[in-house]
């Protein structure tokens, strides 16, 4: 936001800054809850427990949290447009990084606690189990996004930063497919996530069609940009 030095805008920007700081604190606290809850259960505090299959509980909890955060991250832009609350975009990096954090813990739990670093098994899984392959790809694809998430990198990469970070769309699709492929018979939750992701992606398509129309370009010529 541009600021012209004057008393009212100073006060306004201070209020705006305070609002963002408060929102960031809230996002940080809320995003930490699933991890704190896992430790709480793991330590058996207040009768809580990870249940009969603790590795599965931890694995599923971390994976679900990562997917939730991914969808919330993708919801920032539509929410901004619909409400006009542009400051929401300043929460996006933290949400994205928390998503990467949980996804990494999800992978580490799989590698360290589930497979216990049986590398042979790990390679077989990655090669032969489609849902593992897909999940693995999603995590790997997210690493460059996490690395380039700083303001410095954003400035350095310029327009390419936006292009690179469009990787989040295929990552999200891989994430939902990963969820789908391991379901046994009850597809309710995977379908729910697929529905939410479809809505979030549909918003992008809708916006992009509007933009190309305004520019007076036929939609087809710009098709390569979004994929």
């Amino acid at each position, binding site marked *: 936001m541009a600021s012209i030095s004057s008393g009212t805008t100073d006060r306004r920007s201070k209020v705006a800054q305070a609002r963002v700081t408060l929102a960031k604190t809230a996002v940080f606290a809320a995003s930490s809850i699933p991890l704190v809850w896992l430790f709480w259960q*793991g330590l058996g505090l207040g009768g809580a427990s*990870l*249940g*009969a*299959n*603790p*590795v*599965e509980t*931890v694995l599923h909890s971390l994976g679900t949290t990562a997917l939730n955060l991914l969808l919330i991250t993708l919801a920032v832009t539509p929410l901004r447009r619909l409400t006009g609350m542009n400051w929401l975009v300043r929460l996006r990096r933290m949400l994205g990084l928390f998503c990467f954090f949980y996804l990494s813990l999800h992978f580490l739990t799989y590698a360290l*606690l*589930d*497979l*216990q670093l*049986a590398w042979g*098994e790990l390679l*077989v*899984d990655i090669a*032969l*189990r*489609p*849902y593992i392959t897909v999940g693995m790809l999603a995590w790997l694809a997210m690493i460059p996004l996490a690395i380039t998430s700083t303001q410095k990198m954003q400035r350095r990469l310029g327009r390419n930063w936006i292009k690179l970070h469009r990787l989040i769309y295929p990552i999200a699709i891989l994430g939902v497919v990963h969820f789908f*492929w*391991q379901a*046994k*018979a*009850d*597809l*309710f939750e995977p379908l729910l996530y697929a529905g939410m992701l479809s809505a979030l992606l549909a918003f992008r398509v809708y916006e992009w069609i509007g933009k190309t129309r305004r520019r007076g370009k036929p939609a087809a010529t710009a098709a390569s940009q979004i994929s």
Partner: protein
Amino acid sequence: MAKLKHDIKPSEITPEADFMNRRTLLQSALAAGLLPALASPLRAANLPLSGDLENVSKWPNSLSEAPNSFEDITTYNNFYEFGTGKGDPARNAHTLKPRPWSVEVTGEADKLGTYTLEDILAPHALEERIYRFRCVEAWSMIVPWVGFPLGDLLSRFEPNSQAKYVQFFTLNDRDQMPGLRSPVLRWPYREGLTIAEAMHPLTLATVGVYGKVLPNQNGAPLRLVVPWKYGYKSIKSIVRIHFTDRQPSTSWNMAAANEYGFYSNVNPNVDHPRWSQAMERRLGGGLFSPRINTLMFNGYTDEVADLYRGLDLVRNH
């Protein structure tokens, strides 16, 4: 309600060929020390609604490994009639009414009809048998079941020579089972065995666990336990037994035939299309316990391999 004879010799009721087969089986089982309770005078006649079971003898071939905790066994269940989450059955199964209970017997047998649970159980002596339990989802437990050989029960229905398979059905009552409202599987839940598998001395008609009456979430009042097959074959809360001459449909096979075959024998060499079956997580070991190797036929090869001689276990998974 039909009435069942309580003491019939197997020779009275089975076609000779089947009877001879079974005899060989039983003899080998006796030789292997699997069936010492045959002559036991104990009776199970009165199954209490809950609490401790009386007159339960110990099966001498139980595993020596320590069983999983009662809590693990009764709070981590797949019983989709009460929800698809592992904790759902323990939370929701209180709506099941396991008494009065009856079982309908249909198909290729002479003593067809509907029998009360009391009638079903009356002549059978109860045994505690500690078996491995291996879920197709690659986790496992050690469970001290209480029951009696299913074959002893099936013989009383006098299956005829056309009875090549036995199909079992779970209760299908929406008032008692909230999970039936969602069409995750084809209801009623159904499972099946070949007659030889059903008559095998390891196949257990089960009414209890840990010396107590089966909790609802574990399939009260009567379930199967087929220890060399994946857990979903061990159908719960049985209300119908159907003898048939052709391979019966089974719920998981109907849901995904390429993933769940009719036989569903535990086999570390045949992977589920989406995950490996080579190893399993033995529950109860905590967060850091390693996976262990899955055993062929869940460790019951000596007892059951003969059932599958000449059968391609990859095709017939």
